[in-house]
């Protein structure tokens, strides 16, 4: 195939899954692999790395696998400004000039340097620039969660409120931060948000509506075919990391609120799949251990799992619970549950409430309320015919092929 006919797409990620297994890193690699199968496209991956042993003097790039490049870079945590701007104005600029990609699709700017967007505009002027928004990092300095340090849910960012939430910096710094990030976002042709909720937050923040499209992060096809879940459900399950924002304490409290005799009579169980609470300090880890110990009969912590082992564990579950106390954007676990025909019970806020349709393919409970969650669990078991109706309502989630087709349309290239 001649090079003239081939369109190059450069996918930029803040890490490579071989070194760091985050959701956005994985999404970038999956997109690269999906483009590999597309005739007429030549994908390139530019992933930032932080392995000191891989740094070569004077060379900011190296190749991990064919057309998968690693970039030595780092950013400051506040502005996502490249610590070494010259990497972008020299080395990345050189790469862009040689590649002349038709599309540069950022899966993140963190660690890479948000200024790279301008470097693309300058050195590959014909490239369409796409940016997938994975969370609220541009809006919110509090880990991009829009969850205040006080624990409250945050509705909007403003210099005064951000200063009040994280008092270390004067309000003027937050103003500068927003201006700075926006000055690069202005150069992006299309933003891709995995949920309408996320899109809404970025529109509130000032992105033009016509530039932000909702495209789910579709997953590669799954091969496991599971037996249908029991109706009414007996086995509830949580999947995911145990972090302070995932509502595990809430879930164990809700379990405790359910009458023990009724739980026993119905033969109910609740399994927690995942770990990681040790990484959030001993105080949090102890709280979690105490909450798990107090939850009562039927509740057990099944421990961590590998992504490939998820299907096997879903086999032993009739219902998936997502009790998060923050917004969530588009949790992967909901896609996984639906791919395997399991309805989901989740909090009625943010991205999870959007992905789970109350009464159609899952149930909502009032966010952050253990009583509401307990009542919802009880309703799922007690209401005759409800669970079978929800199981019938579950639709398989969009796959990576659909995501790719939507992204290609979003790039707006003449194909």
């Amino acid at each position: 195939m001649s090079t003239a006919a081939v369109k190059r797409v450069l996918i930029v990620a803040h890490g490579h899954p071989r070194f760091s297994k985050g959701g956005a890193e994985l999404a970038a690699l999956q997109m690269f692999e999906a483009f590999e199968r597309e005739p007429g496209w030549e994908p390139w991956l530019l992933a930032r790395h932080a392995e000191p042993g891989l740094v070569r003097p004077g060379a900011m790039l190296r190749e991990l696998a064919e057309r998968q490049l690693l970039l030595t870079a780092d950013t400051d945590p506040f502005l996502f400004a490249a610590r070494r701007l010259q990497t972008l104005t020299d080395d990345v600029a050189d790469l862009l000039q040689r590649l002349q990609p038709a599309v540069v699709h950022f899966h993140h700017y963190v660690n890479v340097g948000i200024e790279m967007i301008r470097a693309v505009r300058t050195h590959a002027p014909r490239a369409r620039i796409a940016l997938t928004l994975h969370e609220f990092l541009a809006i919110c300095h509090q880990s991009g969660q829009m969850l205040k340090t006080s624990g409250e849910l945050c509705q909007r960012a403003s210099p005064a409120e951000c200063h009040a939430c994280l008092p270390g910096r004067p309000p003027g710094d937050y103003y500068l931060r927003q201006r700075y990030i926006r000055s690069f976002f202005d150069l992006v042709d299309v933003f891709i948000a995995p949920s309408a909720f996320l899109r809404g937050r970025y529109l509130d923040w000032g992105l033009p509506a016509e530039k932000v499209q909702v495209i789910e992060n579709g997953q590669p096809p799954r091969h496991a075919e599971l037996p249908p879940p029991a109706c009414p459900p007996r086995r509830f399950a949580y999947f995911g990391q145990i972090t302070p924002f995932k509502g595990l304490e809430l879930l164990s409290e809700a379990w405790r609120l359910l009458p023990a005799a009724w739980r026993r009579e119905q033969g109910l169980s609740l399994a927690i799949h995942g770990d990681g609470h040790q990484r959030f300090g001993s105080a949090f880890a102890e709280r979690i251990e105490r909450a798990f110990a107090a939850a009562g009969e039927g509740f057990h912590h099944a421990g961590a799992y590998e992504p490939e082992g998820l299907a096997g564990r879903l086999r032993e579950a009739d219902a998936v619970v997502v009790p998060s106390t923050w917004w969530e954007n588009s949790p992967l676990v909901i896609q996984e549950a639906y791919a395997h025909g399991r309805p989901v019970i989740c909090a009625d806020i943010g991205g999870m409430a959007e992905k789970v349709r109350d009464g159609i393919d899952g149930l909502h409970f009032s966010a952050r309320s253990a009583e509401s969650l307990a009542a919802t669990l009880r309703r799922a078991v007690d209401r005759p015919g409800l669970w079978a109706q929800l199981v019938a309502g579950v639709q398989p989630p969009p796959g990576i092929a659909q995501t790719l087709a939507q992204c290609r349309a979003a790039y707006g290239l003449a194909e």
Partner: protein
Amino acid sequence: MAPRLLRLIDALSRRSRALRTLRDLTATAKQRLGLHSNRALLAWGWRYALSLVRAGADPLPGEAPTAELATVYGPAEPVPPPIKLLIAVAGERVDLLRPLLVDWIHRLPADQVRLGLLIDSARLAGPAALELQGLAALWRRPLELVLLSGVLPLRGQLPAAAAALRGPQQRLWLVEGLPAREVEGLPAREPADLLATLQGPAQRQGALPGLDAAGQALFLDPVRLGLAPEPPARLASPWALAGPRLGPWAPLLDAGRRGLMALGHQLHRLGWLPAPARLTLQRRWQLPAGGEWITGTVCDPDQRILALRDPASGENLWPRCQQWPLPPAGPALLAAPSGPLRGWGLCTEAILATDGLWLETVASPPRWLPLRGCPAAPRRAAAEELLGELPLSDPRLPAWLDGGLGMALRRFPPEPVSPAVDRRQYGPPPPAPGVSLIIPLYGRWDFMQHQLALFADDPALDGAELIYVIDDPALEAVIAEQAPAWQALFGRSFLTLSRGCNQGYAAANNLGAAQARAPRLLLLNSDVMPAAPGWLAPLLAALDTPHTAAVGARLLYEDDTVQHNGMVARPCIDWGGLLLNHHPGKGLPERLLPAPAVREVPLLTGACLLLRRADYLAVGGLDERFLIGDFEDSLLCQRLQAGGGVLRLCEGVRLYHLERQSMGSAGSAERRARFTLYNAWLAGQLATEPLGAAA
């Protein structure tokens, strides 16, 4: 106020000899003014500062802040824009520079406004230069960096400062380090309105007497905005009262500090308070070529040092001392009252027969400076000590090296090496070799084994002479032990040379070249491995094309990304534009390079370099004057080019270069960086000197 000030100045001038430090000045001022606490003194200083501002007259006659550095980064404008806007950043908030500049960049068009940064902290100069260079490249517009030195720009001095900073026909605006939206007196939020405001009639904050119509300035009080520099730690104690517990009073006390500073300057400028001379003697080294080298620091802005006398001979050595500027230790405002610190050095032909020197200064009794010991001076130790003072990033680095520091270091010749060469031939030497491969070994002996394994079945090596120069005594035993077996196993004859010491990359190659028998030399690193047999013939053929002085090959990393595909000299922003060797395309996958060809290139690496032995010897081989090793190859290339030859790169010839990475600790990485800095400067000097100039 005025009579009291005059009385104070009179009193201070009579006691001036006692005033050596700011602390002395503080104590004397307290005593003379009848003040009993630091708080009262600071309040007095504050009133004095206010009086300077209110008077509007130039408080420091003859002392305008000068721009120590004014550099424009990015593309040059065809016509200088009519407005220059300098953002004054008084503190050291490096993290704020980028968003601030971007905010202004987006609001002001390049053809109307030249944007710049005005700083008064030397420590900010390096980071600021890097930021401006990067932003200028990203936005493709010129950005200026001005480093103000001398005294703190109080309001009353701004007119003079403005005149110095403004270009002809330019309007100058100075704004405090804030985003445009937050600057008082700039009502406009839209770029067009903002520009109109800058173009319109004067709109100023506060009174700025003495500015002409074109040199308007907008100035906001940095103290009020909390952007004033923090007092440096070593002055913290006299001003301990100005700590956080004073709350709202802290800015007033800060102004008081400034008042006292200004008073100190005033006294100096009026000539009533001559700066005391300070001279330290830090190090005495025995030079390898005989004589000794004495260094120290000196601060003598009013030239009060009369003599540095050798009691044995009675000779005044001071006129023979070299001096060089040293980077200021703190913010520029503190360096001013006593003058800048300089390094000094004295090189003698013979070791001084004395254990001390007399320092004679105006109006002080002579002072005895003891000279202790005189160890032999290893060049590297001297370089470490002298270069250790330098910051790793500052646009003024070349100026400091030019100013004497570099020349001082050049006084140290390379360590002499033993003339005895241990020469061992393994296998029969080739009868009439066409090319001699010269391969220095350092640190790793196993590379030699790998190379021999690859050379074994490569017919290109049949008519070649292999010379390994062992530049690391630690490797000698193991190579002597293995060599006969390697020779037998791989069927290649080779010669090893060693002087029993680490003489450096350049000297090792020169030794090899001196012993080589072929008319052509291939300088090769031990960690360079040919990708495939048959690599040598195209290089030899290319050397035979007309006007060709040297030939190189494409070098790759083990993952097929580019390590070397020709080299250029590129200015280094961290080092004020000193030229460094840059490998374009380094790190890129090879398939992104154009189709291989034989190209003429500006410079070639010494890791794999083919040239004629006669040419090599004619230019004196590799220059041995660098520290450790850097730039020998680019300098050799330049010297070959000066003789009319061109350099060619055979891109079709591919070798792998496992370019070793520095495995040292952070400390040694810094030391290495300072050596490279000196080498870069030295390369620039040597390139302009005629060949054969005295080492």
